[in-house]
């Protein structure tokens, strides 16, 4: 269990990046959704022991580690949002080095293990190339390989699918799903689909606060029956936003299709009830200042 207690992080400025985050994360996949600047990466970096919090603490299986991050490093797999490698090492050398630093061992031997891990991320063919010749996607896969190496009790992946093509994204989903068995995998993302596919539970972070902690099913259920979809003229969208909570608007075959959240069912003409998606729920929950239904929040947050 990963327990996060009242984590606060204030940067000079002052900017409050985290304002008392509390979470209890059980083994398995756990998603962390939030818009840009919500504090996700700050939280990830604190949990990875790379950033000292202003106050609060976190425990992994009952052991507090924010005061001494060495307690978590030995049980951590971490894939940050932005990273690079030594450009003059080959992929194999780089991974071998990181495995050595992490103390990862296998009966297969380090060399074989490295090749197998690269195989898992579809990078075996480029293993002997210098990292400086890798594309962004290849570097991302090498990052994934090092993160999943070993038996990390806690795996933190920050925006892991950025830069991956659909095929690689799918492959990564499978890897994460396998890893989530028996360990805590914290997936930070703003891509709702990632959470929808992988996470039985997730939290939404906005402006440094947890605004919701729920499951995809619960989240969808919360807004089920209150989502409506219809077409509007482009010029009418602004007016509609003033009257309704627009969750999504998209162009479909040249027409502007708009989804709105309206609990009272009083919708503009032409709008039909639609099946609620997790994205709808995320967007509704993220903008809670616009939410007037207190019961919704009460049900969604603990």
């Amino acid at each position, binding site marked *: 269990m990963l327990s996060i207690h009242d984590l606060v992080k204030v940067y000079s400025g002052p900017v409050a990046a985290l304002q008392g985050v509390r979470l209890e994360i059980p083994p398995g996949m756990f998603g962390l959704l939030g818009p840009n600047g919500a504090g996700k990466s700050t939280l990830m970096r604190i949990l990875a022991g790379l950033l000292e919090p202003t106050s609060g603490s976190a425990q992994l299986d009952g052991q507090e580690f924010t005061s001494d991050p060495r307690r978590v490093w030995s*049980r951590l797999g971490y894939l*940050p949002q932005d990273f690079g490698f030594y450009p*003059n090492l080959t992929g194999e050398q780089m991974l071998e080095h990181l495995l050595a630093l992490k103390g990862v061992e296998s009966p297969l031997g380090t060399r074989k293990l490295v090749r197998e891990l690269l195989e898992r*991320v*579809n990078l075996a063919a480029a293993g002997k190339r210098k990292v400086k010749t*890798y594309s962004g996607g290849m570097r991302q896969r090498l990052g994934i390989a090092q993160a999943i190496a*070993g038996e990390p009790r806690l795996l933190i992946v920050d925006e892991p699918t950025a830069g991956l093509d659909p095929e690689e994204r799918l492959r990564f989903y499978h890897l994460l799903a396998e890893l989530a068995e028996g360990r805590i995998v914290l997936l930070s993302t703003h891509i709702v689909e990632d959470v929808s596919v992988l996470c039985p539970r997730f939290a939404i972070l906005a402006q440094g606060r947890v605004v919701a902690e729920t499951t995809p099913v619960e989240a969808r259920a919360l807004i089920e029956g209150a989502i409506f979809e219809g077409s509007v003229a482009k010029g009418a969208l602004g007016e509609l936003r003033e009257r309704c909570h627009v969750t999504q608007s998209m162009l479909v075959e040249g027409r502007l299709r708009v989804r709105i959240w309206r609990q009272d069912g009083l919708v503009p003409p032409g709008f039909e009830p639609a099946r609620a998606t997790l994205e709808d729920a995320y967007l509704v929950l993220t903008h809670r200042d616009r939410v007037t239904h207190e019961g919704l929040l009460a049900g969604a947050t603990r």
Partner: protein
Amino acid sequence: MKIARFLEIARTEFRFQTRRPLFWVLLVVLGLMAWGFSTGNLRISAGDSDVGGKRVFITSQYALAFGLSVTVVLLYSFFLAVAAGMTVIRDEELKLGEVLHSTPLTPGEYVWGKFAGVSATFTLALGADLALRAFFNHALKTPASAEFVGPFSIWSYVRPALWIAVPTLLFLGGASFLLGAWTRKPILVFALPTILLLACIFFLWSWNPSWLSPSVDNLLMLLDPAGLRWLEHTWLQVDRGAEFYNTQPLGIDAAFAASRLALAGLGLASIGVASRRLARELRGAVRVRASSRKAELELPRPTRAPGTGSLAELRMSSRTRGLLAGVAEVARAELRELRHQPGLYLFVPLILLQTISISLVRVGAFDTPLLSTSGTLAVGGMNTLTLLLGLLLLFYTVESLERENARGLFSIYYATPVRTAAVLFGKALANSLVGVVILAAAWIACGIVLLVQGKVGMQLSPFLLVWGLCLLPTLVAWNSFVTLLYALGRNRYTTYALALGVLIFTGWMQARGHMNWVGNWNLWGALVWSDMGSFELGRGALVLNRLLYLSIAVACIALAVRVFPRRSFDAAQTLRRLQPRALALSTLRFSPFLIVPLGLGIALYSAVDDGFQGGRYEKLAKDYWRKNIATWKDAPKPAIVAAVVDLTLEPERGFLHTRGEYTLMNDTGRPLESFPVTKGAHYRNVHWTLGGAEYTPEDRAGLEIFTPEAPLAPGGTLQLGFELEGVFPEGSTKNGGGTENFVLPSGVVLTSFGPEFVPVVGYLDSVGVDADNKSDPKVWRRDWYEGVTKSGFGNNLPQTTKITIHAPEEYTLNSVGTLTSDTVEQGIRTSVWESDHPVNFFNVVAGKWTVKRGKGTAIYYHPGHEYNVDEMLACLDGARLHYSEWFYPYPWNELKLSEFPGLAGYAQGFPTNITFSESIGFLTNSDPKASAAFMVTAHESAHQWWGNILEPGEGPGGDILSEGMAHFSTILLTGEMRGERERIELCKRFEEKYGDGRQVDSEKPMVELDGSRPGDRVVLYEKGGMVAWMMLNQVGRANMLRGCQEFIRRFEKGPDHPVLQDFTPVIREYAPDQRAYDAFVEQWYHHVVVPEYKLEDVTRAPVSADGGWDVELTLRNTGTGTMPVEVCAFRGERFPDEPDSSKSRSTAPSDSNVVAAAEESAGAKGVPAAYRESRASVTLGAGESQKVVIHCEFEPQQVSVDPDALVLQLRRKLALFKF
């Protein structure tokens, strides 16, 4: 280019540069330097040092140009390289480049804007520098500084800045920018100023061998980016006097002006190249970027379905690795990265080149080249290696620590369980291995040096001792310190600035003489090597020093591990940690790491302070001076007429015990009520007797006052007995280095000049005098030398000596006189030396030697130092023979020369017992052309006559009879034994040394020379020797030698001791033309004159009548003095490198004022047929010129002035013309 965008980039860069710590550290350092310069400690070495004498203003254009040229290379270059070279790299690391270049901003606007921003920053810095200098010089002018601070003139600051500093800065900025933009390698950017610094210090500013042709010299002047070589060689090397420097604007010649403009243009062109390069890069035309895309496209497709198989199949597990395993892993990866650092391949050859070249250009006494041994190479390379490896480790350590940040690996890397200590140690280990590889390469290079030298074998132990035990701790400590700086500052630029600041501060402390063993972390100047014994002097302090800095290294690393920015600290938490209680607790927890260095530091400081160069001795010396100067300076004292000394030596512990008795005679002509005796500060258990009875003298701070019961009558004698013991020298040195006299296991050197092993009768003027209480030299009456003149060396009458020395049997024990007994009992050797002819002073020297004997001569030397012994022995034999013929028959039985450890680089000619440091003669690199060992032996041997048989008087013109005449004797003996070619070369070397070392404003006529002024030394030795040589040519060789013989005969027994004014009348008696002689003496001894000849309008034309050639020229004497001088037109090589060419013709000087009469001397005896010459003689006064026609029966190739080096002159190299 759109101006608005260009200005925006420039403004942004300027704001960035002026806000970073690097800029502010530069300003602070500049401020400190400006203050330092304003104290007048760094001045052009010209002017008169006497109170009220003319000084060169530190505000003169020349002084400021000098200061700026040095400062720009030593200081600005590093800061500018970082600022300009890192701009593009920084944007790339911040991933800003692509964003910027996706805007309408053009590469030109970007590059020129950035450069403009950096240039504006350093223009501001330069402006601040000048303003600070002006402020400290003029606004804070004190009465003390008034004599060297001139009136304020803005042009004094601006003109040197524009001509000297600005072009260098533009060049450096442009070149650094280009290097960074082109390579994107920070190390290469940092390498540039390092290379520049080394090239300047060790080559462009210092390399000036006597054979260097003026055209090459001119080229190097223009190539020197600092402009210092031009400044030195054009304006400063030959002193033009304070008046000139203080009033004249900095003279810029056309060639130099063009070179400065070209340098600035080169800097701007570099920016143009950088701009084009960036433009090509952005268009994708640059190969590196294209290849990475290509590599991706060509990525082979997997042969089987990837990603199949579960992770569980891999059966992975994790465990935290141990410290050592972590260190090894980090080091392994670092080394892989280091292999790809191009800077490494630049630094390594550079370091090797420096190490070798410095070893090759080392010179000893009289600028003689030195022979290298393993030990001298190891110690000789120490300073260079320390500096260069220190800089290399600085750059590599910082870049290594910064690497994860710069590469974006930081988050992954530092979230692994690897220990922080393993990371720091691993990186340090990898970088240290680079250092070790460089040391190994330097060792091989030293082996090659020894191999090429072909005389000395290679030994490993000195390198292990010096580089292993002394240098490596420095590198470890420096590396740890840099790591700590990085950990604290968390910024590469702050680290560079602070580390460079520490290096500069260390250098400044060393240069100012403030350094001691406690602070000397890099051992600069602290190690003195002797093949005869390793670091016997101050060994304890050296060990403590190394332990101190190793313990500091441990403390630095321990602290660095604690504060290393592996995790970004929270500001609020940091404030909490800095609260007094928390801070105290942290300090307490860290105290185990502080206790050891603190304890070692205190122990070392105490050792230094108690040592013979420390505070305790300093206070004793000052007390001696303060207590006695007024009463006892120049007080009458008796002379020693007999000395009986029984000396016991225990070299292993530096101990000596002396029991002895002086027979004193009152030679003052008046009854002597009391007299002073100086004892050594290291004396313990001192007992005195006076007239055979126990006596307790009055102790006046080390000066013992003896008052006999009845005043000692004139001519009366008295026995003064003494017994003392002590360790000499006592305690540690202050900052390493050597000492002149000592009792050490490797050798013993003791003299009666100071109270080293016997007390000195009288008050010693030099004790307790330093810069604080140094006074102007005494002004003497014009006729002061009339009557009896006291001895210049202390004792007025010759004395007999009987010196008995006891020491372990393996030592040979030498002293003055003849060995009358040498026995060994129970492992103790006892040697008795008795004077077979009276001496004026005595010494004792002991060592574990081998001896080689000649004709009434002997050389005692360290086994293994036989390289030059044959040459020295031949010289000693020749000296004894010829000097006896020329000057006076040698009165003693044997002339011997003994070697002592090179803790001091001097030689002393005590009667019968000359002592040479190993670095003089024994380790002189003597080749057939230079005969350096011969030269120093000839000089020191000559002191048996000029200094011992004839003891000069005290006062102006005294020492010149010792040192100048010894140089004169060397010229004669060189000509006699080595031939005309070497004699001419020797005279030219003396002349050049005089030209370089003289100070116009301070220089006194030789009859007034007392050795107290800057520049006096070259007048004493080189000018003194050359003028005596000119005198010989003036009066004729036989007349001069007869005069010298008569002079010595008259004065050898005293009591009147002669000075120069006594010498010239004696020679006059033998001069064939006394009017001409008087004119010669008047101008050369009673005035300061030196001719300087210039050849002008030189043409040659065939003469149809006889098939010969006429050379027409105008000879101008731009110097002073009137001398006949020969002008020679010639072709071919006069002294080609042939074994039998050393004996050549010598043309007697002509004193006739011939204009066109020429002597044609092709095919003269000993001159190769290919060489032909024709000469004319001209006599020119100061400022005079004369047309000269030289008729040649051959086609001349060159014209030279004074080809036989018969006339002392300035800048002889310029008096040469090649057709």
